[in-house]
């Protein structure tokens, strides 16, 4: 079985966003793998291994791909260090990309790679657009299951049963391969991924795995292809346009009121909340 995982680098979400001259200031930004994409890599790894024995299922392959500038190779390396087998970087400047361009490139890569599953993060935490997985399924005409909180690979590997957390509870959906999966936070819980190989009793640590130092050393020797958008015949240009960037207004300082009647009066007259 072959799984393709597209990953995106994003500015570290733990750091405060700086805005300068009407644009997000990315000088000195610390780039990390989009957390949901890390979960996607972890999902792929768990689907294709015996977690208890720590051994990959025979014939399994995980390919990670990113579309981005040279620096983004570092995020691919970190995915290789945790266990992906091979990487593809399609060289492009961030400003030459939007969801449409990314999808156009992925469609071509998928045509060339023929994966059984494409697993993506549900969204990238920079723009929070939440589009690529769905658009990709639409363009390919493949089945999709979005916001996966659990996944079980059928013994014959021809389908996956996906649990999705919806307002009313958990919805289960079976999709055939090839298909598109986008994953949510809960997918990296100890028992969220089942593959009929890892014993059902085995509990993974919560969260994506760490790269081991041996993994990091091995990642150096794993293949990373570098391509251009034109290699895939992609001529699409971005249709989304940035109009302006501003931070939300700072919150005004709170007030301390003397008693409840004053509070009620202020809520009614000033805040118009009651």
């Amino acid at each position: 079985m072959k799984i393709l995982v597209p990953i995106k680098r994003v500015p570290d979400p733990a750091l405060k966003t700086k805005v300068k001259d009407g644009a997000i200031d990315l000088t000195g930004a610390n780039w990390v793998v989009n957390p949901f994409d890390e979960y996607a890599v972890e999902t792929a790894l768990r689907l294709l291994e015996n977690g208890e024995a720590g051994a990959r299922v025979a014939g399994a392959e995980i390919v990670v791909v990113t579309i981005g500038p040279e620096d983004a190779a570092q995020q691919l390396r970190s995915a290789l260090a945790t266990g992906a087998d091979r990487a593809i970087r399609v060289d492009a400047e961030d400003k030459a990309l939007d969801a449409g361009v990314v999808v156009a490139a992925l469609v071509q890569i998928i045509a060339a790679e023929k994966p059984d599953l494409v697993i993506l993060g549900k969204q990238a935490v920079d723009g929070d657009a939440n589009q690529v997985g769905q658009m990709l399924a639409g363009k390919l005409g493949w089945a999709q299951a979005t916001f996966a909180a659990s996944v079980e690979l059928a013994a014959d590997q021809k389908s996956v049963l996906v649990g999705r957390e919806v307002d009313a509870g958990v919805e289960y959906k079976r999709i055939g391969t090839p298909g598109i999966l986008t994953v949510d936070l809960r997918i990296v819980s100890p028992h969220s991924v089942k593959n009929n190989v890892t014993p059902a009793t085995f509990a993974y640590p919560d969260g994506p795995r760490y790269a081991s130092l041996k993994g990091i050393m091995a990642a150096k020797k794993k293949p990373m292809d570098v391509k251009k958008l034109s290699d895939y015949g992609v001529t699409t240009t971005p249709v989304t346009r940035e109009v302006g960037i501003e931070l939300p207004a700072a919150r005004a300082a709170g007030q301390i009121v003397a008693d409840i009647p004053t509070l009620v009066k202020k809520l009614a007259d000033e805040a118009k909340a009651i």
Partner: protein
Amino acid sequence: MAFRGLDYYGIDELLTDEERLVRDTVRDFVDRAILPGIGKHWSAGTFPMELVAHFGELGLLGSSLTGYGCAGTSPTAYGLICQELERGDSGIRSFASVQSSLVMFPIHAFGSEEQKERWLPAMAAGKAIGCFGLTEPDFGSNPNGMLTSAVRTADGYRLNGTKRWITNGNIAQVALVWAKLDGVVRGFLVPTETPGFTARTIDGKWSLRASVTSELHLEDVNVGEDAILPGVSGMRGPLSCLSQARFGICYGAVGAAMACYDEALSYAKDRVQFSRPIAGYQLVQRKLVDMVSEITKAQLLAFRLGRLKESGKLTAGQISLAKRNNVSIARDIARDARDILGANGVTDDYQCGRHMLNLESVYTYEGTHDIHTLVVGQDVTGLAAFDR
């Protein structure tokens, strides 16, 4: 919020992708697995044994050695591992230093093939723990005077003596004991279950409390021929191990210093006294700037040390200079951070007090600050100010 480190001079750019990845992996591990529980362990005076298996899984033990289940990272990456671990706690870094540099390194460098096969894979995986017995009650800075002795027997050696201040002593499966055989210092790998070998913990420390420190007693300990490290004799044996460990400490001290700076900076920006956050007062800024300045210099020393080691040019004097400088500035920074935190600085709700106390041990072990002064002093003047 996740720890970012201080990088005022863009030293990150000098690291390889792989070194950064190693650093970030360990940094994240320290945030998630070490920091939440370290304060409790420190207060209780216990070593977090549960970490050892994780160290093994991550490949942090003996990371820069090749083969035998070791990862084979660059020396700089090994240094960065020490930096990040010591950002957590000097005691945790001490565990890793002893295991990697003081026990695995000499087995790798001077051991027989059988010794390597027996100990290295198990130690790399965290399934066996080692300790390093050099210091004795009466011989600290002058280990060459050691009284511990080895005599030949029909089928091996018999060891007698006492080793003191031995990190990991009570939790180790193997002790590398340095003893004099016919007046020459030799290393012996002594399984700690050997009859006649006992370890007793040294309690009541107010430093390095999350690390096990022991006294080892060897009373007619009989070991086989295969216990002696064949590849080295004389003080060069233990000293070459110490060079490895000190190299890591040069980085480790930067980690502890960065943790204290980080804590002091965020505290000073939050704590309002009189009209403004205390970070807005000149005297506090002076302390913070001194920290940034000293950490940056220490980082550059450590970085250069790594590259010198990689090119095989590193001298003992260069290691001494960096150990002396980096631990000393870390100790000063921990104290200043403690000061900036006011009364909060003396509680275990914050880290700087723990680092401040830990660094007293780091200042003394692996060659005291003053002994390193004498080493560099001899190097630059050609005159030894101490008896060899």
